[in-house]
């Protein structure tokens, strides 16, 4: 996909992606410019400032903790992590009882224009980046930051079954900051909703049918690429031959022309099959995306809740060996938990309660724990419809702990889990060297009700400080 990123060049990625977005591209850096390489060679005076964070308890990643640790941040990147890291003299230093990676809401509505959010005309290639509303809802983003959420996956087009691609967004106070878009195509999102089970089953088949046609398109494109290469090789060979025996060939041809004239026949030029250049299949942006999903280059996020559609999907998934499905919602999934685990499916659970039956099934607070126990990888998301719900996600995650999920798994579902599932783990999701400094400085345990966020860092910048409130 156009979003494929190199681990050490998030800026390049963000800038490159914005180049595709006319409105925001004005200030974009040339994506081909190797900015980081240049910085390394730059004079020390131009090096980004250092920031040292002293953490009484550092949660490197869920289950990996260091006491009395130091995190050294250079510019936007984590440069060193450990208990015995030396802080260079004169470095700005911040202390915090607990430090962990910023939370990720894998299923949010933050940052998007309301009209686009419920658009019904989106297609697979519609990008949520184009639905960004960079000026609105700043108070909701502020509330999300206060709750420790630094990254969201937001999705437009919820009124249709195929939503388009999701944007992974960092909650900079100014969303027009080009570093805000971490990935403009984090996944392709679809839904299977409705009150009629047969309709829903039919929709699963239709959506999978689209993936099939995407795969076929990709196959055709690849065949074309191969044919073209072969043709070009052949042409080159012939040209070479022609060059070598030009005189003989010309003589032969002249002779043939003369003979034809003698016999009063028209001379027919011999036609080679190599004259036929392979025809390119028509470019189709939708099929490009669907093909990438079918090939597993891009995850597929599918919202569904009830058993008939889950079973239909699970039955047909083996046909799509490379697809990386992430199922969102999955209210009734406890009945198929073992099958989901066997299929290696990742789920996004909204850890709240919903009504019984209907299109949404019945979500229970034990859902996350039940699925985790069955071996399903669980992520958390706030449901993708209400932009204000993101701020409550960490509290809801804590409630999932009250209903059986281990605190480690809950933290994983808020940090490294979604980062991995959305191919962002090279940049965010844990406090490790080389990753972006998207960090929370907390007064206490991340899942405690009384813990206050003291500072939030995104790309090494303090975007929220409790004392500034």
């Amino acid at each position: 996909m156009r979003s494929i990123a190199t681990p050490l060049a998030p800026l390049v990625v963000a800038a490159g992606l914005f180049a595709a977005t006319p409105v925001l591209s004005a200030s974009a850096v040339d994506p081909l410019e190797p900015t980081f390489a240049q910085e390394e060679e730059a004079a020390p005076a131009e090096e980004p400032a250092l920031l040292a964070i002293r953490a009484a308890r550092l949660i490197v990643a869920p289950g990996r903790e260091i006491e009395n640790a130091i995190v050294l941040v250079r510019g936007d990147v984590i440069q060193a992590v450990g208990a015995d890291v030396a802080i260079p003299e004169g470095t700005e230093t911040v202390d915090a009882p607990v430090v962990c990676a910023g939370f990720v809401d894998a299923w949010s509505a933050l940052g998007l224009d309301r009209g686009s959010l419920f658009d019904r005309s989106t297609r697979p290639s519609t990008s949520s980046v184009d639905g960004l509303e960079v000026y609105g809802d700043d108070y909701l983003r502020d509330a999300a930051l206060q709750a420790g959420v630094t990254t969201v996956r937001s999705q437009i087009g919820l009124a249709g079954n195929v939503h388009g691609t999701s944007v992974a967004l960092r909650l900079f106070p100014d969303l027009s900051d080009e570093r805000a878009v971490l990935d403009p195509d984090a996944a392709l999102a679809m839904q299977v909703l409705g009150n009629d089970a047969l309709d829903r089953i039919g929709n699963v088949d239709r959506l999978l049918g689209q993936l099939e046609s995407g795969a076929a398109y990709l196959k055709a494109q690849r065949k074309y690429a191969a044919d073209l290469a072969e043709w070009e090789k052949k042409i080159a060979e012939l040209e070479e031959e022609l060059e070598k025996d030009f005189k003989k060939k010309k003589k032969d041809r002249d002779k043939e022309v003369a003979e034809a004239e003698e016999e009063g026949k028209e001379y027919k030029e011999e036609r080679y099959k190599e004259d036929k250049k392979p025809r390119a299949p028509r470019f189709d942006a939708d099929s490009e995306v669907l093909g990438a999903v079918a090939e597993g280059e891009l995850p597929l996020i599918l919202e569904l809740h009830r058993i008939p559609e889950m079973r239909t999907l699970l039955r047909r998934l083996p046909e799509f060996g490379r697809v990386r499905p992430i199922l969102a919602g999955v209210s009734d999934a406890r009945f198929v938990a073992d099958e989901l685990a066997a299929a290696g499916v990742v789920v996004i659970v909204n850890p709240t309660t919903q009504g019984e039956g209907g299109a949404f099934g019945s979500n229970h607070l034990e859902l996350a724990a039940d699925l985790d126990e069955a071996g399903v990888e669980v992520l958390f998301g706030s449901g993708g419809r209400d932009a204000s719900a993101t701020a409550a996600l960490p509290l809801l995650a804590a409630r999932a702990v009250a209903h059986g999920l281990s605190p480690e798994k809950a933290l994983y579902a808020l940090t490294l889990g979604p980062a991995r599932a959305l191919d962002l783990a090279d940049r965010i999701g844990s406090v490790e060297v080389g990753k972006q400094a998207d960090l929370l400085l907390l007064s206490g345990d991340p899942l405690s009700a009384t813990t206050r966020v003291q500072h939030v860092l995104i790309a090494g910048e303090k975007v929220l400080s409790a004392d500034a409130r």
Partner: protein
Amino acid sequence: MLSTILAVTLATAACATPFTGESSIDASTAQGPLATHDARVATVQLTTGDCSSDFGVSTDIGGSWTPDGRVPESGSALATDGVEAAPAQLLAIVADQLHLPDGATVKDGVLVVRDGVIVAAGEVDVPEGARVVRHDGHVTAGLVAPYSAGYLPSDESNENTRPFLPDGRVVYGFDPELPRLADALEQGVTTIVLPPAVSQVVGGRTGVVKTYGGHVVSRGAHLALSMGSQAANVTRAPTSYGGMVRALDGLFTEPQGAYAEVASGNLGLMTYVSERHEVDRALRLFARHGLKGALVGPSLAGELAERIAESGCSVVLPTPDLVPNERERDAMVALFEAKVAFGFWLNDPSRYRSSAITALRAGATRDDALNSITSTAAKIARVGTSVGQLARGFDADFVLWSGDPLEFTTTVEAVYVRGELAFGGDQ
């Protein structure tokens, strides 16, 4: 059954409540769901809530009820009385953290229970012969909800035809087998107030019931008013706020009956108001007639916190969002600062404890937050002398938590109602 009636009458007579006559109704209709329990239940229901000025027999004795309904002489708290029935079983809970009424938390605290009543709580010895339950976590009183929505059969909460029904009793609509009661119990809620429909200006008497065992704590704790827009109706009078206030002004000057009981303080008052102007209207009505009670439902009540504090009213807030918006949070903080007694609605039981945690996060003290769903809630429900606290004489309703009850991550491990394991636990 005759002896039951006698006991009931004896107990209530001492309280001089106007409901003595109803005891026979209750006992003689002993085929309904309310009467599936023993005589003790009938005794309890008539001896607590209706005599709010005094402790009922269920609350201030160390003894037990006997099968013949006789209330034994109070003696040594732990003495058995030589009754022919099975000897009173002592239950002792040893908790890592025991929450006592004054906000103190006792490490390795002991709660001693006999016959459904707490006989000792705090740093006391485990009595000999007691069945001991050790709990490696916190123990609090069972949660009390001063106002519940949706805990009656659905048609009970839609009454729209009779706007004034002062002598109606919601408790007659109580269905102890309603599945939602079990949901509430599983979240640690042991006592709830059943209110009448908000579409009635005067809906009658609230009932206070337990979520387990069909126990009725009070058959008429408050007179319930609704001064919300729902009570003004186009199909019958009153059709406006003006008509509603005029009617109430007339009724509260009546020399006898429910309204006079409220005015004299013998009967509680619970008033549903959701908008700020409705709170204002209610406070003016109360001031004219010298009334006070619980204001139920105004999420922005805090913006009138000073006036509410002056009126002596308490407030029952609707379930706040996990992350309330700034205005709601400011309103809550104003209530805390004005020292207004507050509690929360119960609708989604899984969110009930969250309300107290939200209050804590907004700036309430730990005590106020926990009390808002226990002792303060019980006082608002006018059963504050029998439930909501771990103290001698109170009903043995308590919750065994996996940790701090004011953390989202904490789980309910067991719930006891009147000393009986009602949910969870291993025993």
